[in-house]
């Protein structure tokens, strides 16, 4: 990373709004550390208790998704310790209209992309009643079918998000895709 590139970051990241970014390996201890910081900052920045809680709950589900489904990383790097971890990026940022966007991204294989697309299909187009039904259906699935269908975490994110969630796959190196998902509060 040279200084010029680093300076470019400033151009895309607003300087005077609520923002929290993380990039790298995510493990449960990272979740706890970043989550602690996030909570403190949200308490200072937001007055609405409900909004703080919703931001935090979406954050936890996004981070746990990265831990579970994050691949070994863009270059197939090995996970540095024995703790379960995944590679990913997370950004929590206040938009122009005051809404908070939560974005996370991680690398997936072509097969994972295909499987995820069909799971996401229902989540992206569902109404809140449909999401409630989907949650109920997924909760009651027998253990052998639990891995089929959208994860409870993704359904939870879609239910808590105040606008429909968005998702995208962008081709990356090593025949992987960069999967990103966005929720709003």
């Amino acid at each position: 990373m040279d200084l010029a590139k680093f300076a470019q970051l400033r151009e895309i990241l607003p300087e005077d709004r609520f923002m929290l970014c993380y990039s790298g390996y995510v493990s449960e201890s990272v979740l706890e550390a970043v989550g602690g910081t996030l909570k403190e900052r949200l308490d200072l920045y937001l007055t609405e208790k409900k909004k703080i809680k919703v931001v935090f709950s979406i954050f936890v589900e996004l981070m746990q998704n990265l831990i579970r489904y994050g691949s070994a990383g863009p270059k197939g790097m090995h996970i540095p310790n024995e703790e379960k971890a995944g590679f990913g990026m997370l950004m929590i940022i206040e938009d122009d209209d005051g809404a908070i966007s939560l974005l996370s991204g991680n690398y997936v294989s072509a097969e994972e992309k295909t499987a995820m697309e069909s799971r996401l299909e229902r989540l992206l187009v569902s109404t809140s009643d449909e999401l409630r039904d989907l949650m109920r259906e997924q909760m009651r699935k027998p253990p052998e079918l639990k891995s089929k269908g959208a994860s409870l975490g993704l359904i939870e994110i879609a239910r808590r998000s105040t606008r429909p969630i968005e998702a995208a796959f962008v081709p990356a190196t090593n025949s992987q895709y960069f999967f990103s998902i966005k929720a709003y509060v």
Partner: protein
Amino acid sequence: MSQDFFLAATSRTPEVSIYPATHSAVMSGECYPEDSEKFFTELNRAVADYFAQGASSLNFEIKLVYFNSSSARALMELMDSLEQRSTEGAKIEVRWFHDEDDDVTKEFVEDIAADYSNLDIVLIPTLDS
């Protein structure tokens, strides 16, 4: 007299107390354990021990400010086990406190309660945090 059960809160798990003398239990705080299987195994064992000591009724207060999706499934499984005990004759009432404006939690509790025919779950829309 059976022993009280007490599990101290951590930054990611709630405080849990079970009092055989008053047939009551309380779970309060936040619940997004690093290892949810471990936490809920301990909790389920404590509930099983409580009934194994001869108790036939329980008033269970759940005051969770926040729980994540994997805890939601484990909580449902705990409620399933209480429904089973109710079917077998135990008198159990669950009082589930939630924030008034927390629809997702309210609907979650309503949806699991709808599947039970014996377990009494009362939703209470007030929660101090």
